[in-house]
């Protein structure tokens, strides 16, 4: 069994250190994302008999289409549908880092969070209730100190766990954004579900949110749908 695992996170959170912890140097492979000049780093590692293909996505603050890096990360998750997405969060800067977590949850990625730089957070005097946080987000969280290789085993455990659970347990979104917006989202989702190709290709809720945000890339992608006008009417 080979599972694909994507690594994602803000710049400066120690993502590459984690990548190097998971994939020994010899098994790393650097190429190019097709059609782009940004490097694609990937590698394989074997854990407890399972083979994990790990892809290091470019460091990014969000998943809008502003920069090449972000588009690559987003498209990879939407189109390649990796089995697990590991979001590496800087524990000492958690509030802003979680913004990306929310975007990933909207994307319905099969998420595992590596709460990295846990030592720095402690030094800063932060106290994080990891269990509570995990419960509220509905996502498994592993505290790590990548530079000291702490938490790596637990992380791999959670990755394999999550990979095996994918598609078996349907996760309902734990996070909602208030009655008004949710109402709008549901309204749009209903229209989206009428278009079979769209509904199959993209997670409906995520698509609805992107449409509300007038995301350029998505607007381009629904250009050919017969429901385009109906959708445009709602969001314009």
């Amino acid at each position, binding site marked *: 069994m080979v599972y694909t695992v994507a690594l994602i996170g803000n710049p400066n959170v120690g993502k590459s250190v984690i990548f190097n912890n998971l994939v020994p140097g010899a098994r790393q492979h650097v190429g190019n994302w097709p059609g782009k000049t940004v490097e694609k780093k990937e590698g394989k590692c074997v854990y407890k008999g399972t083979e994990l293909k790990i892809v290091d996505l470019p460091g990014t*603050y*969000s998943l*809008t289409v502003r920069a090449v890096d972000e588009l690559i990360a987003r498209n990879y998750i939407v189109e390649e549908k990796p089995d697990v997405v590991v979001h590496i969060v800087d524990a000492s800067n958690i*509030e*802003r880092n979680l913004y990306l977590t929310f975007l990933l949850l909207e994307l319905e990625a099969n998420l595992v969070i590596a709460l990295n730089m846990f030592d720095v957070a402690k030094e800063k005097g932060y106290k994080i209730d990891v269990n509570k946080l995990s419960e509220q987000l509905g996502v498994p969280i592993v505290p790590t100190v990548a530079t000291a290789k702490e938490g790596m085993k637990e992380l791999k455990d959670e990755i394999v766990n999550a990979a095996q659970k994918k598609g078996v347990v349907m996760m309902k979104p734990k996070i909602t954004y208030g009655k008004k917006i949710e109402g709008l989202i549901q309204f749009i989702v209903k229209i989206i579900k009428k278009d079979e190709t769209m509904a199959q290709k993209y997670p409906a809720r995520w698509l609805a949110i992107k449409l509300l945000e*007038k995301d350029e890339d998505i607007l381009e992608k629904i250009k050919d749908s017969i429901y385009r006008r109906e959708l445009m009417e709602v969001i314009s």
Partner: protein
Amino acid sequence: MEIPLAVLPLGGRGKIARICGGRGLVRRLSDMGFIPDVEVKVVHSHASHNPGRGGPLVVEVKDSRMALGRGVAMKIMVQELDD
């Protein structure tokens, strides 16, 4: 009264009221945590007598330090907070 973030003095605090910019800038700033009602504090500032022309400044927002160019800082409108 709303003033641009660029005008806040060193050590000054403000609450973001709105962003005067195009969609791209607004999105970019909100990705980084600059949204209405969020509190910011000026940590470093290369001020000059003309606030629109000084060097960039550093503000503390949501646990992190963000460096902003003057042009950007002029477009973030804040309510100054007194201590």
